[in-house]
């Protein structure tokens, strides 16, 4: 469960406003999509939630805990797959996951058990003991997800999870995210691909220029914009087609 209220973040001493008066919430058992063109402030928002950036103003709660006050506690609650997957190429997939398990203080036996589970669910058996050097994008995302979820977090943040994935991998990833949702977890993903939110998300938050342009289910957004498809609705709601080509 995530609640954010009036978030504001500027860079370069206030000259660049990345996020301004940004409020949204994400509930457990739902997939919430942050939809917006590149540079709209999606990643900045997520970074504030996972404690790498401090907001200039506003407040956040993750399961009732303030990331600014108790960053370590929040990091324990969150499973984060950032935009940059950042695997260690010289380590095997298993060692990559094991490293994070260790940083979370998970015991060795428990770690191996969970890695084997993830390997099954995410179909990683074939490459789990190979070095990450030379992995495909799809394989990398799978390892990054397993690594981020090794401590069984209740809330999961994914930044552009399907970036660079082929159709089949995207499909299976969506299936996996739905599984997470049905387990009652709170899943938040950011994307600039409308089909993705349409196919996956229970609630959509459209971001443009660091602000919330619209919020609701896909049907609500269509109704509000008066358009018949989501793409047109999106363009209408953010007020321009800027960033859509990217």
């Amino acid at each position, binding site marked *: 469960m995530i609640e954010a209220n009036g978030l504001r973040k500027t860079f370069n001493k206030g000259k660049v406003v990345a996020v301004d008066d940004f409020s949204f919430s994400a509930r457990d058992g739902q997939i919430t999509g942050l939809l917006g063109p590149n540079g709209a402030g999606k990643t900045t928002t997520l970074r504030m939630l996972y404690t790498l950036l401090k907001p200039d103003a506003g407040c956040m709660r993750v399961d009732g805990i303030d990331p600014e006050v108790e960053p*370590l506690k929040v990091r324990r609650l969150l499973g984060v797959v950032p935009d*940059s997957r*950042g695997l260690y190429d010289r380590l095997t997939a298993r060692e990559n996951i094991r490293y994070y398990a260790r940083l979370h203080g998970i015991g060795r036996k428990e770690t191996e058990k969970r890695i084997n589970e993830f390997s099954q669910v995410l179909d990683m058996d074939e490459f789990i003991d190979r070095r990450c050097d030379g992995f495909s994008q799809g394989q990398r995302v799978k390892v990054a997800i397993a690594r981020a979820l090794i401590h069984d977090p209740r809330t999961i943040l994914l930044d552009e999870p399907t970036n660079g994935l082929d159709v089949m991998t995207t499909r299976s990833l969506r299936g996996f995210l739905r599984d997470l949702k049905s387990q009652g977890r709170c899943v938040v993903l950011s994307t600039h691909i409308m089909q993705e939110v349409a196919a996956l998300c229970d609630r959509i938050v459209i971001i443009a220029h660091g602000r919330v342009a619209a919020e609701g289910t896909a049907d609500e957004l269509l109704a509000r914009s008066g358009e018949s498809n989501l793409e047109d609705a999106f363009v209408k709601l953010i007020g321009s087609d800027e960033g859509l080509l990217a």
Partner: protein
Amino acid sequence: MIGVFIKELLDNFRDRRVILNTLVFTPIFGPVIFVVLMAFMTQQATERMEAPLELPVVGAEHAPNLIGFLERQGVIITGPPEDPERAIRTEEEEIILRIGPDYGQAWNEGRPAPVELIVDQSLRYTGATVSRVRGYLNGYSGEISQLRLMMRGVHPELTRPIQIKVTDLSTPESRGGMILAFLPYFILITVFMGSMHMATDTTAGERERKSLEPLLINPLPRWQVMAGKLAATTAFALMTLALGLIAFVIAMGYMPVEDMDMALNLDLGVAAWAFVLVAPAALLAAALLTILASFAKSYREAQSYMSMVVLIPMIPSLWMLIDPARTETWMTLVPLLNQNVLILELVRGEPVNLAWVGLCLASTSLAALVLAFIAGTLYNRPKLIFTSG
């Protein structure tokens, strides 16, 4: 923190290039250069002192007695080259003796008879030859002046109002230490070279791979992440140092120390002391390089900083070479300089001054901890976390 430590070690041990560079080439590099250099120098020195001296003489016919004296001393007189000055400039000859036509006249009139030594004193390798020729000429001069005085009934001792006697108290160990002035540098450099790669890989490398952001989302304080990385880097530096010292001890066995009439006191015991002395410098180097590399955006940028830092341990060595002062207490308070002077004391075979060792360890550790503390705060700056923005 231990998790970070183990992972960084594992990660870097997988990189064969790093292992080869850091744990094989770096430790060997110093001793090999050192031994080759020393062997070359001593060989040259002994060759020069023992080989028969060939001396080209211009105008030998003007001073047959002098030439006869030189020949009796074992000097081989050769014919002069056509252009003596050019022969010296082109380094064909090291030294040429020129006797002018007015030699005989000056001699007969009792004035100092001029002889000329044509040399290039900027060529240091000619020094031994030049001083040998000077020695012979002075010998001849002395012999003649004594004869002249005796002919006039004057006791030759009168011309020697003082007698200089040098009592050389240097032990063979201390003479070895003089030549070994650069040994501390070769030892200190191992901790810098040893931590260089690791410091870059764990910070700038992590940023370049974009793995820093996910790493810092893990629930441990950032200073602990940094501490783990620093510990791994320091461990690497210590390994390189240990291997380097062992390589030095082995290499000393191949040094022509007998030819140099000196004993180099670098056995395992001294190496162990040197390890203890330099150990805090490993953390110092690791922290310093880590701080620098943290500010670099890429691996390449970091490496360009590194190459400059590696010159730092050279400063005290150069200074000691230019101004070889006695060890004083304040020197043991300056990190890197203190390792320098104390290692020199050790290889000279002087007894270990525990107070100095204590000061050295304390001051270096303090500097290292300050740097490590600074490094620990670095990841609190968002600028150092994200590759862009």
